[in-house]
Protein backbone atom coordinates (compact mmCIF):
# COMPACT_ATOMS: atom_id res chain seq x y z
CA UNK A 1 0.00 0.00 0.00
CA UNK A 2 2.78 2.35 0.89
CA UNK A 3 4.50 1.63 -2.40
CA UNK A 4 1.41 2.78 -4.25
CA UNK A 5 1.77 6.21 -2.66
CA UNK A 6 5.48 6.45 -3.31
CA UNK A 7 5.01 5.62 -6.98
CA UNK A 8 2.01 7.88 -7.31
CA UNK A 9 2.67 8.60 -10.98
CA UNK A 10 2.44 4.94 -11.88
CA UNK A 11 -0.60 4.40 -9.65
CA UNK A 12 -2.36 7.33 -11.25
CA UNK A 13 -1.44 6.10 -14.71
CA UNK A 14 -2.82 2.64 -14.02
CA UNK A 15 -6.07 4.06 -12.60
CA UNK A 16 -6.39 6.29 -15.64
CA UNK A 17 -5.69 3.28 -17.84
CA UNK A 18 -8.50 1.41 -16.14
CA UNK A 19 -10.88 4.33 -16.63
CA UNK A 20 -10.03 4.51 -20.32
CA UNK A 21 -10.26 0.76 -20.75
CA UNK A 22 -13.68 0.63 -19.11
CA UNK A 23 -14.90 3.58 -21.18
CA UNK A 24 -13.69 1.91 -24.34
CA UNK A 25 -15.35 -1.39 -23.56
CA UNK A 26 -18.55 -0.46 -21.77
CA UNK A 27 -19.90 2.56 -23.59
CA UNK A 28 -22.23 2.25 -26.51
CA UNK A 29 -21.59 5.62 -28.03
CA UNK A 30 -18.77 5.55 -30.56
CA UNK A 31 -17.50 9.02 -29.70
CA UNK A 32 -17.26 7.99 -26.05
CA UNK A 33 -15.40 4.88 -27.10
CA UNK A 34 -12.88 7.02 -28.97
CA UNK A 35 -12.55 9.29 -25.94
CA UNK A 36 -11.90 6.21 -23.83
CA UNK A 37 -9.25 5.11 -26.29
CA UNK A 38 -7.55 8.48 -25.94
CA UNK A 39 -7.67 8.34 -22.15
CA UNK A 40 -6.06 4.92 -22.29
CA UNK A 41 -3.30 6.13 -24.58
CA UNK A 42 -2.68 9.17 -22.39
CA UNK A 43 -2.38 6.91 -19.35
CA UNK A 44 0.30 4.91 -21.13
CA UNK A 45 2.15 8.09 -22.05
CA UNK A 46 2.03 9.24 -18.44
CA UNK A 47 3.29 5.86 -17.25
CA UNK A 48 6.12 5.80 -19.76
CA UNK A 49 7.26 9.34 -19.10
CA UNK A 50 7.08 8.77 -15.33
CA UNK A 51 9.51 5.91 -15.92
CA UNK A 52 11.98 8.33 -17.48
CA UNK A 53 11.62 11.06 -14.86
CA UNK A 54 14.35 11.44 -12.26
CA UNK A 55 13.54 13.89 -9.42
CA UNK A 56 15.61 17.04 -9.35
CA UNK A 57 16.88 16.94 -12.92
CA UNK A 58 16.13 19.10 -15.91
CA UNK A 59 14.43 18.49 -19.23
CA UNK A 60 17.03 17.32 -21.76
CA UNK A 61 17.45 20.63 -23.56
CA UNK A 62 20.89 22.17 -23.52
CA UNK A 63 20.70 25.84 -22.53
CA UNK A 64 24.04 27.69 -22.49
CA UNK A 65 26.09 25.00 -20.74
CA UNK A 66 26.01 21.23 -21.09
CA UNK A 67 25.68 19.72 -17.62
CA UNK A 68 26.68 16.19 -18.54
CA UNK A 69 24.50 13.10 -18.51
CA UNK A 70 23.86 13.41 -14.76
CA UNK A 71 22.12 16.75 -15.15
CA UNK A 72 19.17 15.65 -17.24
CA UNK A 73 16.31 13.16 -17.10
CA UNK A 74 16.19 10.11 -19.36
CA UNK A 75 15.15 11.49 -22.74
CA UNK A 76 14.35 8.15 -24.38
CA UNK A 77 10.82 7.66 -22.96
CA UNK A 78 9.88 11.23 -23.87
CA UNK A 79 11.10 10.73 -27.42
CA UNK A 80 9.24 7.44 -27.69
CA UNK A 81 6.04 8.98 -26.41
CA UNK A 82 6.31 11.76 -28.96
CA UNK A 83 6.05 9.03 -31.57
CA UNK A 84 3.26 7.45 -29.58
CA UNK A 85 1.31 10.72 -29.53
CA UNK A 86 1.59 11.07 -33.30
CA UNK A 87 0.34 7.52 -33.72
CA UNK A 88 -2.55 8.14 -31.30
CA UNK A 89 -3.50 11.34 -33.14
CA UNK A 90 -3.62 9.60 -36.49
CA UNK A 91 -5.64 6.70 -35.14
CA UNK A 92 -8.09 9.08 -33.46
CA UNK A 93 -8.50 11.02 -36.69
CA UNK A 94 -9.11 7.84 -38.64
CA UNK A 95 -11.62 6.54 -36.10
CA UNK A 96 -13.50 9.87 -36.09
CA UNK A 97 -13.59 9.89 -39.89
CA UNK A 98 -15.04 6.39 -39.88
CA UNK A 99 -17.58 7.46 -37.26
CA UNK A 100 -18.73 10.32 -39.47
CA UNK A 101 -19.07 7.92 -42.40
CA UNK A 102 -21.00 5.52 -40.21
CA UNK A 103 -23.34 8.31 -39.13
CA UNK A 104 -23.96 9.16 -42.77
CA UNK A 105 -24.88 5.59 -43.61
CA UNK A 106 -26.78 4.50 -40.50
CA UNK A 107 -28.00 7.76 -39.01
CA UNK A 108 -26.79 6.94 -35.51
CA UNK A 109 -23.57 6.41 -33.60
CA UNK A 110 -24.98 4.16 -30.88
CA UNK A 111 -23.28 0.84 -31.40
CA UNK A 112 -26.15 -1.38 -30.26
CA UNK A 113 -28.56 0.30 -32.68
CA UNK A 114 -26.06 -0.13 -35.49
CA UNK A 115 -25.58 -3.79 -34.67
CA UNK A 116 -29.35 -4.31 -34.80
CA UNK A 117 -29.53 -2.95 -38.31
CA UNK A 118 -28.33 -5.79 -40.44
CA UNK A 119 -26.82 -4.77 -43.74
CA UNK A 120 -28.60 -4.96 -47.07
Amino acid at each position, binding site marked *: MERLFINYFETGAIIL*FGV*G*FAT*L*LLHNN*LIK*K*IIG*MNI*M*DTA*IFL*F*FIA*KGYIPGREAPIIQDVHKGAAGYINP*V*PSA*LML*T*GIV*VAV*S*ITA*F*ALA*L*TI*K*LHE*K*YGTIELDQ*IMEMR*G*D
Partner: protein
Amino acid sequence: MISLAMAKSFPLLILLILLISAFIMPLVKNNRVVKGISLGTMMMAAVLSVITMIYVVKNGSFVYRIGHWDAPWGIEFYISPMEAAIGVLFTWVAGLILWYSLYSLEKEIPSEKLPFYYLLVNVLIGALLGIVYSNDIFNCFVFVEISTLASCGIVVIKDKKENIKAALKYLILSCLGSGLFLMGIAFLYSITGNLNMTFIYKEVAAAQYVYPNVILISVVLFTIGLGVKSAMFPLHTWLPDAHSSAPSVSSALLSSLVLKGFVILLIKILFRALGFTLVKELPILDLILILGSLGMIMGSVFAILQKEIKRVIAYSSVAQVGYIFFGIGLASELGVAVALYHVFGHAVTKAMLFLTVGAMIETTGKKKIEDFKGIGKEMPITLGLFTLGALSMVGIPILPGFVSKWNLALASISAGKPILVAIILISSILNALYYFPVVIHGFFGEENLKDRVYKSKQKPVKEMLPVICLSVAVLFVGLISEPLIQLFSLGLK
Protein backbone atom coordinates in the same frame (compact mmCIF):
# COMPACT_ATOMS: atom_id res chain seq x y z
CA MET B 1 31.40 -11.76 -53.78
CA ILE B 2 30.20 -8.19 -53.67
CA SER B 3 26.53 -8.99 -54.21
CA LEU B 4 26.35 -11.41 -51.31
CA ALA B 5 28.12 -9.03 -48.96
CA MET B 6 25.56 -6.44 -49.97
CA ALA B 7 22.81 -8.86 -48.99
CA LYS B 8 23.03 -7.64 -45.41
CA SER B 9 21.46 -4.35 -46.41
CA PHE B 10 18.69 -5.95 -48.46
CA PRO B 11 16.07 -6.16 -45.68
CA LEU B 12 16.34 -2.41 -45.17
CA LEU B 13 16.37 -1.89 -48.92
CA ILE B 14 13.13 -3.88 -49.26
CA LEU B 15 11.43 -1.67 -46.68
CA LEU B 16 12.70 1.50 -48.36
CA ILE B 17 11.60 0.37 -51.81
CA LEU B 18 8.12 -0.54 -50.63
CA LEU B 19 7.52 2.52 -48.45
CA ILE B 20 8.99 5.10 -50.83
CA SER B 21 7.35 3.69 -53.96
CA ALA B 22 4.00 3.70 -52.14
CA PHE B 23 3.90 7.48 -52.26
CA ILE B 24 4.66 7.71 -55.97
CA MET B 25 1.30 6.14 -56.70
CA PRO B 26 -1.07 9.04 -55.91
CA LEU B 27 1.03 11.23 -58.20
CA VAL B 28 0.47 8.96 -61.20
CA LYS B 29 -2.68 9.56 -63.20
CA ASN B 30 -2.70 6.37 -65.22
CA ASN B 31 -3.97 3.31 -63.35
CA ARG B 32 -2.00 0.92 -65.51
CA VAL B 33 1.23 2.63 -64.46
CA VAL B 34 0.17 2.40 -60.81
CA LYS B 35 -0.39 -1.34 -61.17
CA GLY B 36 2.97 -1.67 -62.88
CA ILE B 37 4.78 0.19 -60.09
CA SER B 38 3.04 -1.85 -57.43
CA LEU B 39 3.76 -5.21 -59.01
CA GLY B 40 7.28 -4.20 -60.00
CA THR B 41 8.29 -3.07 -56.53
CA MET B 42 6.78 -6.16 -54.96
CA MET B 43 8.70 -8.35 -57.38
CA MET B 44 11.91 -6.49 -56.59
CA ALA B 45 11.24 -7.01 -52.89
CA ALA B 46 10.57 -10.70 -53.53
CA VAL B 47 13.86 -11.17 -55.41
CA LEU B 48 15.82 -9.28 -52.74
CA SER B 49 14.23 -11.33 -49.98
CA VAL B 50 15.22 -14.55 -51.75
CA ILE B 51 18.83 -13.35 -52.01
CA THR B 52 18.76 -12.47 -48.29
CA MET B 53 17.43 -15.94 -47.57
CA ILE B 54 20.26 -17.57 -49.55
CA TYR B 55 22.81 -15.43 -47.73
CA VAL B 56 21.37 -16.25 -44.31
CA VAL B 57 21.23 -19.98 -44.99
CA LYS B 58 24.88 -19.91 -46.13
CA ASN B 59 26.39 -17.56 -43.56
CA GLY B 60 24.06 -17.78 -40.57
CA SER B 61 22.01 -15.06 -38.94
CA PHE B 62 23.29 -11.49 -38.79
CA VAL B 63 22.57 -8.13 -37.20
CA TYR B 64 22.27 -5.02 -39.35
CA ARG B 65 22.41 -1.63 -37.70
CA ILE B 66 20.15 1.11 -39.04
CA GLY B 67 21.94 4.43 -39.34
CA HIS B 68 25.16 5.41 -37.66
CA TRP B 69 24.56 4.17 -34.12
CA ASP B 70 25.35 0.78 -32.68
CA ALA B 71 22.85 -1.41 -30.92
CA PRO B 72 21.68 -0.13 -27.55
CA TRP B 73 21.36 3.42 -28.89
CA GLY B 74 20.38 2.77 -32.45
CA ILE B 75 17.83 0.46 -33.99
CA GLU B 76 18.94 -2.76 -35.60
CA PHE B 77 17.52 -5.54 -37.74
CA TYR B 78 18.09 -9.10 -36.68
CA ILE B 79 17.83 -11.54 -39.56
CA SER B 80 17.86 -15.21 -38.68
CA PRO B 81 16.74 -17.97 -41.08
CA MET B 82 13.26 -17.65 -39.57
CA GLU B 83 12.95 -13.94 -40.39
CA ALA B 84 14.43 -14.41 -43.85
CA ALA B 85 12.02 -17.23 -44.65
CA ILE B 86 9.02 -15.25 -43.39
CA GLY B 87 10.19 -12.32 -45.52
CA VAL B 88 10.27 -14.54 -48.59
CA LEU B 89 6.80 -15.83 -47.77
CA PHE B 90 5.30 -12.36 -47.26
CA THR B 91 6.77 -10.80 -50.39
CA TRP B 92 5.95 -13.72 -52.67
CA VAL B 93 2.39 -14.24 -51.45
CA ALA B 94 1.76 -10.49 -51.60
CA GLY B 95 3.24 -10.42 -55.11
CA LEU B 96 0.96 -13.22 -56.30
CA ILE B 97 -2.10 -11.61 -54.69
CA LEU B 98 -1.23 -8.30 -56.36
CA TRP B 99 -0.86 -10.11 -59.67
CA TYR B 100 -4.36 -11.52 -59.23
CA SER B 101 -5.66 -8.08 -58.27
CA LEU B 102 -4.60 -6.60 -61.62
CA TYR B 103 -7.57 -8.23 -63.30
CA SER B 104 -10.21 -8.24 -60.60
CA LEU B 105 -9.81 -5.23 -58.36
CA GLU B 106 -11.49 -2.70 -60.63
CA LYS B 107 -14.73 -4.66 -60.43
CA GLU B 108 -14.89 -4.17 -56.66
CA ILE B 109 -13.62 -0.67 -55.97
CA PRO B 110 -14.00 2.57 -57.96
CA SER B 111 -11.10 3.20 -60.31
CA GLU B 112 -10.19 6.63 -58.89
CA LYS B 113 -9.39 4.95 -55.59
CA LEU B 114 -7.08 2.40 -57.15
CA PRO B 115 -3.81 4.33 -56.56
CA PHE B 116 -4.69 4.71 -52.89
CA TYR B 117 -5.42 1.02 -52.62
CA TYR B 118 -2.03 0.08 -54.00
CA LEU B 119 -0.42 2.71 -51.76
CA LEU B 120 -2.02 1.07 -48.74
CA VAL B 121 -0.98 -2.42 -49.84
CA ASN B 122 2.64 -1.37 -50.29
CA VAL B 123 2.68 0.40 -46.91
CA LEU B 124 1.02 -2.63 -45.31
CA ILE B 125 3.53 -5.14 -46.65
CA GLY B 126 6.41 -2.82 -45.81
CA ALA B 127 5.18 -2.43 -42.24
CA LEU B 128 4.66 -6.18 -41.86
CA LEU B 129 8.19 -6.86 -43.05
CA GLY B 130 9.35 -4.21 -40.60
CA ILE B 131 7.66 -6.10 -37.77
CA VAL B 132 9.34 -9.29 -38.91
CA TYR B 133 12.84 -7.89 -39.36
CA SER B 134 13.16 -5.33 -36.57
CA ASN B 135 14.92 -6.19 -33.36
CA ASP B 136 13.64 -3.16 -31.46
CA ILE B 137 10.33 -3.53 -29.65
CA PHE B 138 9.25 0.07 -29.94
CA ASN B 139 10.07 0.09 -33.62
CA CYS B 140 7.89 -2.99 -33.91
CA PHE B 141 5.09 -1.11 -32.14
CA VAL B 142 5.23 1.71 -34.69
CA PHE B 143 5.13 -0.79 -37.54
CA VAL B 144 2.21 -2.57 -35.84
CA GLU B 145 0.27 0.69 -35.77
CA ILE B 146 1.08 1.45 -39.41
CA SER B 147 -0.04 -1.98 -40.50
CA THR B 148 -3.24 -1.70 -38.44
CA LEU B 149 -4.14 1.61 -40.08
CA ALA B 150 -3.29 0.31 -43.53
CA SER B 151 -5.29 -2.86 -43.07
CA CYS B 152 -8.30 -0.85 -41.85
CA GLY B 153 -7.84 1.23 -44.98
CA ILE B 154 -7.97 -1.72 -47.33
CA VAL B 155 -11.14 -2.94 -45.62
CA VAL B 156 -12.94 0.38 -45.75
CA ILE B 157 -12.03 1.28 -49.32
CA LYS B 158 -15.14 -0.46 -50.67
CA ASP B 159 -17.28 2.26 -49.05
CA LYS B 160 -20.28 0.08 -48.22
CA LYS B 161 -22.23 0.05 -44.96
CA GLU B 162 -20.84 -3.22 -43.67
CA ASN B 163 -17.28 -2.30 -44.57
CA ILE B 164 -17.33 0.85 -42.48
CA LYS B 165 -18.93 -0.98 -39.58
CA ALA B 166 -16.42 -3.81 -39.79
CA ALA B 167 -13.46 -1.47 -40.13
CA LEU B 168 -14.51 0.61 -37.13
CA LYS B 169 -14.93 -2.53 -35.04
CA TYR B 170 -11.52 -3.70 -36.20
CA LEU B 171 -9.94 -0.32 -35.51
CA ILE B 172 -11.35 0.01 -31.99
CA LEU B 173 -10.40 -3.51 -30.99
CA SER B 174 -6.93 -3.21 -32.42
CA CYS B 175 -6.44 0.12 -30.65
CA LEU B 176 -7.26 -1.74 -27.47
CA GLY B 177 -4.68 -4.30 -28.47
CA SER B 178 -2.00 -1.76 -29.26
CA GLY B 179 -2.70 0.07 -25.99
CA LEU B 180 -2.10 -3.15 -24.06
CA PHE B 181 0.97 -3.89 -26.16
CA LEU B 182 2.44 -0.44 -25.45
CA MET B 183 1.76 -0.91 -21.74
CA GLY B 184 3.62 -4.20 -21.93
CA ILE B 185 6.58 -2.40 -23.52
CA ALA B 186 6.44 0.17 -20.69
CA PHE B 187 6.65 -2.55 -18.04
CA LEU B 188 9.44 -4.37 -19.80
CA TYR B 189 11.35 -1.14 -20.37
CA SER B 190 11.01 -0.16 -16.74
CA ILE B 191 12.75 -3.30 -15.50
CA THR B 192 15.30 -3.84 -18.27
CA GLY B 193 16.03 -0.30 -19.45
CA ASN B 194 16.31 -1.49 -23.03
CA LEU B 195 14.12 -1.76 -26.07
CA ASN B 196 16.46 -3.92 -28.09
CA MET B 197 15.46 -7.58 -27.86
CA THR B 198 19.01 -8.90 -27.62
CA PHE B 199 19.75 -6.56 -24.73
CA ILE B 200 16.41 -7.27 -23.06
CA TYR B 201 17.34 -10.94 -23.15
CA LYS B 202 20.59 -10.16 -21.33
CA GLU B 203 18.98 -7.88 -18.75
CA VAL B 204 15.92 -9.96 -18.06
CA ALA B 205 18.01 -12.89 -16.88
CA ALA B 206 19.10 -10.76 -13.93
CA ALA B 207 15.73 -9.05 -13.45
CA GLN B 208 13.58 -12.17 -13.35
CA TYR B 209 14.37 -12.89 -9.71
CA VAL B 210 13.91 -9.29 -8.59
CA TYR B 211 10.70 -8.50 -10.45
CA PRO B 212 8.93 -11.78 -11.30
CA ASN B 213 5.47 -10.17 -11.21
CA VAL B 214 6.37 -7.37 -13.57
CA ILE B 215 7.59 -9.86 -16.14
CA LEU B 216 4.38 -11.85 -15.79
CA ILE B 217 2.24 -8.72 -16.19
CA SER B 218 4.12 -7.57 -19.25
CA VAL B 219 3.94 -11.00 -20.89
CA VAL B 220 0.18 -11.16 -20.26
CA LEU B 221 -0.19 -7.68 -21.76
CA PHE B 222 1.83 -8.68 -24.82
CA THR B 223 -0.16 -11.86 -25.27
CA ILE B 224 -3.56 -10.22 -25.00
CA GLY B 225 -2.56 -7.16 -27.00
CA LEU B 226 -1.16 -9.14 -29.89
CA GLY B 227 -3.83 -11.80 -29.41
CA VAL B 228 -6.54 -9.23 -30.19
CA LYS B 229 -4.76 -8.28 -33.37
CA SER B 230 -4.07 -11.81 -34.50
CA ALA B 231 -7.58 -13.07 -33.61
CA MET B 232 -6.81 -15.38 -30.71
CA PHE B 233 -10.03 -17.22 -29.92
CA PRO B 234 -12.20 -15.20 -27.53
CA LEU B 235 -10.85 -11.96 -29.00
CA HIS B 236 -11.60 -12.79 -32.63
CA THR B 237 -14.98 -11.04 -32.88
CA TRP B 238 -13.76 -8.41 -35.31
CA LEU B 239 -12.29 -10.88 -37.77
CA PRO B 240 -15.30 -12.42 -39.56
CA ASP B 241 -16.88 -9.03 -40.29
CA ALA B 242 -13.69 -7.41 -41.49
CA HIS B 243 -12.49 -10.33 -43.59
CA SER B 244 -15.80 -11.18 -45.16
CA SER B 245 -16.88 -7.68 -46.13
CA ALA B 246 -13.56 -6.55 -47.58
CA PRO B 247 -12.74 -6.94 -51.29
CA SER B 248 -11.48 -10.46 -51.86
CA VAL B 249 -7.93 -9.28 -52.58
CA SER B 250 -7.90 -7.49 -49.21
CA SER B 251 -9.36 -10.54 -47.49
CA ALA B 252 -6.56 -12.67 -48.90
CA LEU B 253 -3.93 -10.19 -47.73
CA LEU B 254 -5.48 -9.73 -44.29
CA SER B 255 -6.08 -13.36 -43.61
CA SER B 256 -2.88 -14.82 -44.97
CA LEU B 257 -0.33 -12.14 -44.05
CA VAL B 258 -1.52 -9.52 -41.55
CA LEU B 259 -2.59 -11.97 -38.84
CA LYS B 260 0.72 -13.77 -39.20
CA GLY B 261 2.82 -10.64 -38.74
CA PHE B 262 1.48 -10.16 -35.21
CA VAL B 263 1.85 -13.84 -34.36
CA ILE B 264 5.49 -13.69 -35.39
CA LEU B 265 6.02 -10.60 -33.27
CA LEU B 266 4.57 -12.48 -30.29
CA ILE B 267 6.88 -15.43 -30.98
CA LYS B 268 9.85 -13.08 -31.22
CA ILE B 269 9.03 -11.37 -27.93
CA LEU B 270 8.33 -14.60 -26.07
CA PHE B 271 11.23 -16.67 -27.31
CA ARG B 272 13.84 -14.16 -28.38
CA ALA B 273 13.44 -11.23 -25.98
CA LEU B 274 12.49 -13.25 -22.91
CA GLY B 275 13.90 -16.64 -23.80
CA PHE B 276 12.62 -20.19 -23.69
CA THR B 277 13.77 -21.00 -20.19
CA LEU B 278 12.10 -17.97 -18.65
CA VAL B 279 8.81 -18.26 -20.54
CA LYS B 280 8.48 -21.98 -19.80
CA GLU B 281 8.19 -21.23 -16.10
CA LEU B 282 5.36 -18.73 -16.55
CA PRO B 283 1.76 -19.92 -16.63
CA ILE B 284 1.17 -17.87 -19.76
CA LEU B 285 1.98 -20.66 -22.19
CA ASP B 286 -0.71 -22.86 -20.68
CA LEU B 287 -3.18 -20.03 -21.22
CA ILE B 288 -2.08 -19.74 -24.85
CA LEU B 289 -2.41 -23.52 -25.24
CA ILE B 290 -5.95 -23.56 -23.84
CA LEU B 291 -7.07 -20.58 -25.90
CA GLY B 292 -5.46 -22.09 -29.00
CA SER B 293 -7.29 -25.39 -28.51
CA LEU B 294 -10.56 -23.59 -27.87
CA GLY B 295 -10.02 -21.56 -31.03
CA MET B 296 -9.33 -24.69 -33.07
CA ILE B 297 -12.67 -26.17 -32.09
CA MET B 298 -14.91 -23.13 -31.68
CA GLY B 299 -13.67 -21.46 -34.87
CA SER B 300 -14.68 -24.53 -36.83
CA VAL B 301 -18.03 -24.78 -35.02
CA PHE B 302 -18.80 -21.17 -35.85
CA ALA B 303 -17.73 -21.78 -39.43
CA ILE B 304 -20.22 -24.63 -39.78
CA LEU B 305 -23.04 -22.33 -38.68
CA GLN B 306 -22.32 -19.67 -41.31
CA LYS B 307 -24.25 -19.30 -44.54
CA GLU B 308 -22.02 -16.96 -46.52
CA ILE B 309 -18.98 -18.61 -48.01
CA LYS B 310 -16.57 -15.80 -47.19
CA ARG B 311 -17.62 -15.86 -43.54
CA VAL B 312 -16.97 -19.60 -43.46
CA ILE B 313 -13.42 -19.04 -44.65
CA ALA B 314 -12.97 -16.12 -42.24
CA TYR B 315 -14.01 -18.30 -39.28
CA SER B 316 -11.72 -20.99 -40.60
CA SER B 317 -8.90 -18.46 -40.14
CA VAL B 318 -9.81 -18.25 -36.45
CA ALA B 319 -9.45 -22.02 -36.22
CA GLN B 320 -6.15 -22.01 -38.09
CA VAL B 321 -4.71 -19.23 -35.93
CA GLY B 322 -5.74 -21.49 -33.07
CA TYR B 323 -3.35 -24.13 -34.45
CA ILE B 324 -0.53 -21.60 -34.42
CA PHE B 325 -1.20 -20.61 -30.82
CA PHE B 326 -1.52 -24.30 -29.95
CA GLY B 327 1.99 -24.83 -31.30
CA ILE B 328 3.35 -21.88 -29.33
CA GLY B 329 1.61 -23.06 -26.19
CA LEU B 330 3.28 -26.47 -26.30
CA ALA B 331 6.44 -24.71 -25.14
CA SER B 332 8.78 -27.05 -26.95
CA GLU B 333 11.10 -26.08 -29.77
CA LEU B 334 9.36 -28.47 -32.12
CA GLY B 335 5.99 -26.92 -31.21
CA VAL B 336 7.11 -23.40 -32.03
CA ALA B 337 8.85 -24.52 -35.21
CA VAL B 338 5.65 -26.25 -36.33
CA ALA B 339 3.67 -23.14 -35.43
CA LEU B 340 5.95 -21.18 -37.75
CA TYR B 341 5.55 -23.85 -40.41
CA HIS B 342 1.80 -23.52 -40.03
CA VAL B 343 2.17 -19.78 -40.61
CA PHE B 344 3.73 -20.73 -43.93
CA GLY B 345 1.20 -23.35 -44.89
CA HIS B 346 -1.80 -21.33 -43.82
CA ALA B 347 -0.61 -18.19 -45.60
CA VAL B 348 -0.39 -19.82 -49.02
CA THR B 349 -3.51 -21.95 -48.58
CA LYS B 350 -5.74 -19.22 -47.24
CA ALA B 351 -4.63 -16.79 -49.93
CA MET B 352 -5.60 -19.39 -52.51
CA LEU B 353 -8.99 -20.08 -50.88
CA PHE B 354 -9.92 -16.41 -50.65
CA LEU B 355 -8.88 -15.72 -54.24
CA THR B 356 -10.80 -18.67 -55.67
CA VAL B 357 -13.88 -17.76 -53.65
CA GLY B 358 -13.44 -14.17 -54.80
CA ALA B 359 -13.44 -15.39 -58.40
CA MET B 360 -16.60 -17.42 -57.80
CA ILE B 361 -18.41 -14.50 -56.18
CA GLU B 362 -17.25 -12.17 -58.91
CA THR B 363 -18.56 -14.24 -61.82
CA THR B 364 -21.79 -15.47 -60.23
CA GLY B 365 -22.60 -12.44 -58.09
CA LYS B 366 -23.81 -14.67 -55.25
CA LYS B 367 -22.49 -15.06 -51.73
CA LYS B 368 -24.44 -17.88 -50.07
CA ILE B 369 -23.05 -21.42 -49.94
CA GLU B 370 -26.23 -22.95 -51.29
CA ASP B 371 -25.99 -20.84 -54.44
CA PHE B 372 -22.72 -22.51 -55.30
CA LYS B 373 -24.26 -25.95 -55.86
CA GLY B 374 -23.21 -27.23 -59.23
CA ILE B 375 -20.62 -24.57 -59.78
CA GLY B 376 -18.05 -27.24 -60.54
CA LYS B 377 -19.47 -27.57 -63.99
CA GLU B 378 -19.32 -23.87 -64.72
CA MET B 379 -15.95 -23.13 -63.15
CA PRO B 380 -14.07 -26.43 -62.96
CA ILE B 381 -10.56 -24.99 -62.60
CA THR B 382 -11.55 -22.54 -59.88
CA LEU B 383 -13.38 -25.14 -57.87
CA GLY B 384 -10.52 -27.57 -58.42
CA LEU B 385 -8.09 -25.09 -56.89
CA PHE B 386 -10.53 -24.49 -54.04
CA THR B 387 -10.64 -28.25 -53.49
CA LEU B 388 -6.86 -28.39 -53.21
CA GLY B 389 -6.94 -25.66 -50.56
CA ALA B 390 -9.78 -27.37 -48.72
CA LEU B 391 -7.90 -30.69 -48.73
CA SER B 392 -4.87 -28.95 -47.27
CA MET B 393 -7.00 -27.32 -44.56
CA VAL B 394 -8.60 -30.63 -43.64
CA GLY B 395 -5.25 -32.38 -43.59
CA ILE B 396 -4.68 -34.76 -46.50
CA PRO B 397 -1.10 -36.13 -46.61
CA ILE B 398 1.65 -34.26 -48.47
CA LEU B 399 -0.27 -30.97 -48.24
CA PRO B 400 0.96 -28.47 -45.61
CA GLY B 401 -2.16 -28.74 -43.43
CA PHE B 402 -1.44 -32.42 -42.85
CA VAL B 403 2.25 -31.88 -42.14
CA SER B 404 1.60 -29.30 -39.47
CA LYS B 405 -1.19 -31.34 -37.85
CA TRP B 406 0.98 -34.46 -37.83
CA ASN B 407 3.92 -32.61 -36.31
CA LEU B 408 1.71 -30.84 -33.79
CA ALA B 409 0.41 -34.22 -32.71
CA LEU B 410 3.97 -35.49 -32.38
CA ALA B 411 4.98 -32.40 -30.43
CA SER B 412 2.04 -32.69 -28.04
CA ILE B 413 2.86 -36.34 -27.38
CA SER B 414 6.50 -35.53 -26.70
CA ALA B 415 5.39 -32.65 -24.46
CA GLY B 416 3.55 -35.24 -22.36
CA LYS B 417 0.04 -34.08 -23.26
CA PRO B 418 -1.30 -36.87 -25.52
CA ILE B 419 -4.91 -35.83 -24.87
CA LEU B 420 -4.33 -32.84 -27.11
CA VAL B 421 -4.12 -35.18 -30.11
CA ALA B 422 -7.85 -35.69 -29.69
CA ILE B 423 -8.39 -31.95 -30.06
CA ILE B 424 -6.40 -31.92 -33.30
CA LEU B 425 -8.48 -34.83 -34.60
CA ILE B 426 -11.81 -33.26 -33.64
CA SER B 427 -10.77 -30.01 -35.24
CA SER B 428 -9.79 -31.79 -38.48
CA ILE B 429 -13.14 -33.54 -38.63
CA LEU B 430 -14.93 -30.26 -38.05
CA ASN B 431 -12.81 -28.69 -40.82
CA ALA B 432 -13.94 -31.43 -43.17
CA LEU B 433 -17.57 -30.78 -42.18
CA TYR B 434 -17.62 -27.28 -43.59
CA TYR B 435 -15.18 -27.54 -46.50
CA PHE B 436 -16.35 -30.77 -48.11
CA PRO B 437 -20.04 -29.85 -48.62
CA VAL B 438 -18.96 -26.92 -50.80
CA VAL B 439 -16.75 -29.18 -52.89
CA ILE B 440 -19.16 -32.11 -53.07
CA HIS B 441 -22.21 -30.02 -53.92
CA GLY B 442 -20.09 -28.08 -56.37
CA PHE B 443 -18.93 -31.08 -58.34
CA PHE B 444 -21.64 -33.67 -57.83
CA GLY B 445 -24.80 -31.72 -56.96
CA GLU B 446 -27.97 -32.55 -58.88
CA GLU B 447 -28.03 -29.03 -60.18
CA ASN B 448 -25.10 -29.99 -62.38
CA LEU B 449 -27.39 -31.64 -64.85
CA LYS B 450 -29.90 -28.99 -65.74
CA ASP B 451 -29.15 -25.80 -67.62
CA ARG B 452 -25.53 -25.41 -66.65
CA VAL B 453 -23.08 -24.88 -69.46
CA TYR B 454 -19.64 -26.43 -69.08
CA LYS B 455 -16.97 -23.80 -68.33
CA SER B 456 -19.45 -21.02 -69.06
CA LYS B 457 -18.37 -18.81 -66.19
CA GLN B 458 -14.73 -19.79 -66.03
CA LYS B 459 -12.35 -16.85 -65.88
CA PRO B 460 -9.61 -16.95 -68.51
CA VAL B 461 -6.56 -18.98 -67.54
CA LYS B 462 -4.41 -15.85 -67.75
CA GLU B 463 -6.37 -14.34 -64.86
CA MET B 464 -6.27 -17.52 -62.80
CA LEU B 465 -2.52 -18.02 -63.29
CA PRO B 466 -1.52 -16.39 -59.97
CA VAL B 467 -3.87 -18.73 -58.11
CA ILE B 468 -2.38 -21.67 -59.97
CA CYS B 469 1.06 -20.44 -58.88
CA LEU B 470 -0.24 -20.33 -55.31
CA SER B 471 -1.43 -23.92 -55.63
CA VAL B 472 2.06 -24.91 -56.80
CA ALA B 473 3.38 -23.05 -53.75
CA VAL B 474 1.03 -25.05 -51.52
CA LEU B 475 2.39 -28.31 -52.90
CA PHE B 476 5.94 -27.00 -52.64
CA VAL B 477 5.52 -25.94 -49.01
CA GLY B 478 4.08 -29.37 -48.31
CA LEU B 479 7.02 -31.13 -49.97
CA ILE B 480 9.82 -29.16 -48.32
CA SER B 481 8.28 -29.41 -44.85
CA GLU B 482 11.25 -31.20 -43.26
CA PRO B 483 13.97 -28.65 -44.11
CA LEU B 484 11.62 -25.76 -43.33
CA ILE B 485 10.84 -27.03 -39.84
CA GLN B 486 14.55 -27.64 -39.21
CA LEU B 487 15.30 -24.13 -40.41
CA PHE B 488 12.78 -22.65 -37.98
CA SER B 489 14.04 -24.58 -34.99
CA LEU B 490 17.51 -23.35 -35.97
CA GLY B 491 16.32 -19.78 -36.22
CA LEU B 492 14.82 -19.76 -32.75
CA LYS B 493 18.16 -20.32 -31.04
